[in-house]
């Protein structure tokens, strides 16, 4: 297992150093002077300052996968890909360079290396949907740095939900879109199914992140073909470090795991379902 990078204890303040809009999403970056560089699949609990807004929300911090991390000086510039779906994401999407970002992280378990996930596999397949492409962007880079071959399949609902492609600095992305505006018209999991049909199951390992329905389809496809897969899960979170037991996802063996400390990256065969009530939006 690739070890998680530990977070400094407590919340710290970073500065927003960049913000741009991309296909309906926002990419913003923050200079983390005091935190260590994260691993792909880890996330941060983020809040602005001030934070509570009209109607008393947002109140809690919000979880975001790190999409890119580059050293700058003593620190790290962290990049996040964000879709504004409610008061928390709207407040973060409005932050301008110079604003304070309150940060706890990096948190959670990262993606495994391909050798760990699928010993003997020839290459990785990355499957991302919507805003879920964020952690795959960092994963793609770290796989490349390790010399692991990888193919990337990304799916989007429509043009308004298709930002962040430029986070992937590679040309062999295959796209799917539900409205057909780019690439295959349909689901990204259609592409995965086709690809795994051609492949010998033993030659690939799958890494996926996206909406619950997509993850559930990935889980089913990989289970059927006995392809090892890791899913980066989402669940509503209050704390992000195992304190509240709020982020429960049902385990295949019964009971629940906490997405924030036992995940967010989990083996696809470890969970009972990726369709968890209250997740997604």
């Amino acid at each position, binding site marked *: 297992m690739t070890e998680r990078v530990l977070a400094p204890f*407590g919340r710290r303040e970073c500065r927003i150093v960049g913000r741009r809009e991309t296909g309906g999403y926002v990419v913003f970056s923050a200079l983390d002077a005091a935190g260590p560089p994260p691993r792909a699949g880890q996330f941060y609990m983020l809040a602005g300052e001030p934070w509570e807004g009209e109607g*008393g929300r947002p109140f809690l911090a919000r979880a975001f996968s790190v999409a890119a991390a580059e050293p700058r000086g003593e620190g790290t510039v962290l990049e996040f890909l964000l879709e504004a779906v409610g008061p928390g994401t709207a407040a973060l999407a409005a932050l301008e360079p110079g604003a304070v970002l309150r940060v706890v992280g990096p948190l959670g378990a990262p993606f495994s290396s391909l050798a760990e996930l699928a010993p003997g596999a020839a290459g990785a397949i990355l499957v991302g949907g919507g805003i879920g492409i964020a952690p795959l962007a960092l994963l793609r880079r770290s796989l490349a740095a390790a010399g692991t071959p990888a193919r990337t399949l990304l799916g989007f609902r429509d043009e308004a939900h298709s930002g962040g492609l430029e986070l992937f600095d590679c040309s062999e992305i295959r796209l799917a879109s539900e409205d057909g505006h780019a690439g295959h018209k349909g689901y990204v999991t259609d592409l995965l199914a086709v690809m795994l049909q051609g492949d010998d199951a033993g030659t690939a390992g799958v890494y996926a992140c996206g909406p619950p329905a997509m993850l559930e389809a990935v889980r089913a496809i990989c289970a059927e073909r006995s392809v090892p897969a890791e899913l980066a899960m989402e669940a509503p979170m209050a704390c992000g470090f195992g304190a509240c037991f709020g982020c429960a996802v049902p385990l295949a063996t019964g009971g629940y795991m906490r997405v924030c400390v036992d995940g967010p990256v989990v083996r696809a065969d470890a969970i009972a379902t990726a369709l968890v009530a209250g*997740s997604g939006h």
Partner: protein
Amino acid sequence: MEIAGLRLEHPVLNGSGTFDALAARRAFGDDLLARFPFSGFVSKTITPEPRAGNPPPRLYETPSGLINSIGLPNKGLAGFLAEDLPALAELPVPLIVSVMATSHDDFERVVSAVAARSEVAALELNVSCPNVESGLIVGASAQETASLVEALRTVCPKPLIVKLTPNASDPGAIAAAAEEAGADAVSLINTIRARATDPQTFEPWLGAGSGGLSGPAVRAIALDQVARVAARVSLPVIGMGGIESGRHAAEFLAAGATAVAVGTASFRDPGAATRVLAELSEELRRYGFDSLSELREVRAPSTST
């Protein structure tokens, strides 16, 4: 300072179930131990048998607050004693174990087994959790509380803290019953029964139907109950409910609490309690109080309606 026979470095504890020191150690490593924010660590409530907890969703954010409906997931008594207790003993502060059961017999079994362990400094009885049936029944009735505490007193040589439910008409009466029956301290408030609606279907949002409210939204309610309870009993009172700053902690102490606990605030900042403590010292200095007990003397008789 000392509370119920427990020596504590400072007056800021955690609320049960709002900080899992073992999970936090996985996230923060030994930095957690080096900068441990609480003067005593209260475990999440354990029960005789393992519990999986409630079906999700378990959380809902409200204006300045949080509803949770966790349902006391835990490894059960045996799992806790075998796996968690040795690890919790590595914490640099005294350990208070929170326990709950649904019958006197089960309660006695858990309390005596936990109290027998040398790693444990004190016990907290959760008779107030709104998510499990017994909490409602025992903690809402002075008589039930008294009879439970009396029974447990005989099997528990260690300090016994009774955690009161805010979902009672008169928490002062319950506290008085607990005192009478031999409790060493009371703590309050637990979460207040609350409910959320599914944004799409208008059905109940939480998997368990309802849950408990915590955070700044409940602070003024908690402060009132702490003042009423402190006026009613001479036991030490551990006050909590929405404490986010040293100012808030000072208000609870002025209302009669001997110590405070930080709960939901730790979710927003794992180190919130450290800040609360630093700000509390600052408050004392600014307003010219020489000690915590001087601040506690401010409190006016709280008999007014």
